[in-house]
């Protein structure tokens, strides 16, 4: 096996520069006592890591990190500090000693092992020559989608993705259990912050551009949804983008307005329905004689035989895979979008019945 040295090319230089930025941000987050600053810096962290992920060829991950880390996480965290407080207390230096020890030991262990890893970018590293390479060789034939990440995500490891969708569903459930569905916002009289925005003529610029943006964002969400086979994207990213469009609507036009068009019950129901749809596809595969989530058996045998280029008559068996992936991506989309909206409703609808600036 020929030895490999990481080349010092443009890629590597950009990689080093971005990682250095990330390191600076982590230090800044650790040092600041303002939670608002920490949250914005975390958002920046996510954004820069999204750029770094593109350098590392992880386009899908980058996309997800940008919409989730820099987008939705930030919104949730800002909602949380609005409901709690925006400063954290100073930590006495004595109390930092034990954490420092733990972190040093853990970090030491990590460095100890990391220096034994193959060099960055080594094509003959064990991680890169076995399963990963098999996917690259077989995905187009087995699944038929050019985006191999999508192929692996929704077909080879589709069961993981079912679990991931369930995790999101569970998170929506948990947040709803803890904070409700924003029902307070529906019961109470119009909330000043939201109502002022919607009624006074002050925010006319915001409202006009929001009216232009929301349809654009929604269309983009569908583009990402259906383009996921060909390029970066898929149900998860699309769901988050769709949720962002709805959240934008709520921010500009008021929570009540949004809740009237998308009631919390609907959002909650759809998030369960998405998981059901995903699991349902798997069960349909079972009843058609395949294994769970084997999309080759998505259609009954009789129907499949009638299709052109069917795998049953020796062609590519992409029909079942294609529609199976579409169906489960739709399930993911529904669950993610409606769960994100549920979570937003829960945080935004939780009226700050305490004073907004903490008890200080």
């Amino acid at each position, binding site marked *: 096996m020929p030895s490999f040295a990481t080349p010092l090319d443009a890629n590597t230089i950009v990689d080093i520069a971005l990682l250095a930025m990330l*390191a600076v941000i982590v230090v800044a987050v650790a040092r600041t006592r303002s*939670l608002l600053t920490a949250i914005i810096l975390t958002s920046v962290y996510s954004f820069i890591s999204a750029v770094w992920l593109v350098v590392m*060829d992880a386009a899908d991950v980058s996309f997800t990190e940008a919409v989730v880390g820099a987008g939705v996480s930030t919104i949730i965290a800002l909602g949380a500090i609005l409901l709690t407080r925006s400063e954290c207390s100073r930590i006495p230096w004595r109390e930092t000693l034990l954490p420092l020890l733990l972190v040093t030991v853990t970090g030491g262990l990590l460095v100890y092992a990391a220096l034994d890893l193959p060099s960055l970018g080594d094509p003959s590293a064990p991680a890169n020559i076995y399963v990963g390479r098999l996917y690259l060789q077989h*995905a187009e034939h087995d699944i038929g989608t050019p985006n191999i990440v999508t192929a692996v995500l929704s077909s080879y*490891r589709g069961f993981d993705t079912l679990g991931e969708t369930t995790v999101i569903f569970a998170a929506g459930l948990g947040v709803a259990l803890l904070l409700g569905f924003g029902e307070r916002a529906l019961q109470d009289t119009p909330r000043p912050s939201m109502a002022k925005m919607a009624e006074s003529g002050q925010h006319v610029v915001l409202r006009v551009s929001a009216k232009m943006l929301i349809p654009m964002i929604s269309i983009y969400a569908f583009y990402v949804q259906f383009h996921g086979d060909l390029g970066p994207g898929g149900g998860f990213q699309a769901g988050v983008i769709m949720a962002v469009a709805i959240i934008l609507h709520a921010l500009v036009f008021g929570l009540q307005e949004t809740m009237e068009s998308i009631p919390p019950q609907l959002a909650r129901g759809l998030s369960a329905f998405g998981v059901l749809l995903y699991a349902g596809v798997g069960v349909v595969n079972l009843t058609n004689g395949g294994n769970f989530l084997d999309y080759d058996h998505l259609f009954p045998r009789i129907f499949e035989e009638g299709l052109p280029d069917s795998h049953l008559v020796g062609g590519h068996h992409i029909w079942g895979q294609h529609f199976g992936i579409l169906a489960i991506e739709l399930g993911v989309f529904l669950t993610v979008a409606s769960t994100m909206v549920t979570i937003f409703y829960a945080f935004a609808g939780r009226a700050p019945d305490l004073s907004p600036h903490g008890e200080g």
Partner: protein
Amino acid sequence: MSFLLGHFNYLIVVFLMMGGLWITFSSRNYIKRMIGLALFQTSVGLFYISLGKVAGGTAAIVLDKTSKAGEALNAHLSPDYVARAGVDGVVYSNPLPHVLILTAIVVGVATLAVGLAIAVRVREAYGTVEAGEIAELDRTEAGPRA
């Protein structure tokens, strides 16, 4: 030098992970701890992605080597290397870590949402999100606890 270049990523990523972990361990504020946890989880993602990078590779979206983009990609690489590291004449980065980290990011945001929701409830129940003050309130208001 080339060793450092090849392991620079891992060292920085370890630093990032430990930064997140340190924030989680050392902070007494619930929100700050969640931020630290989010950083920690994101950084673990960066670790995985570093494992899957292949030098001179491209994102794992099937590319025709005769297309314009394919030719542009292969222009910088020796044919020998492409033959060794590539699939059908194009070098791709390993897609498997990408898939895993997509899942992990989703898990991360789910954890963040639930954790912050708990923090909001703690604030409503105790009036504070500082661990020290909460422990103090539990001691004084709920009677002695072992």
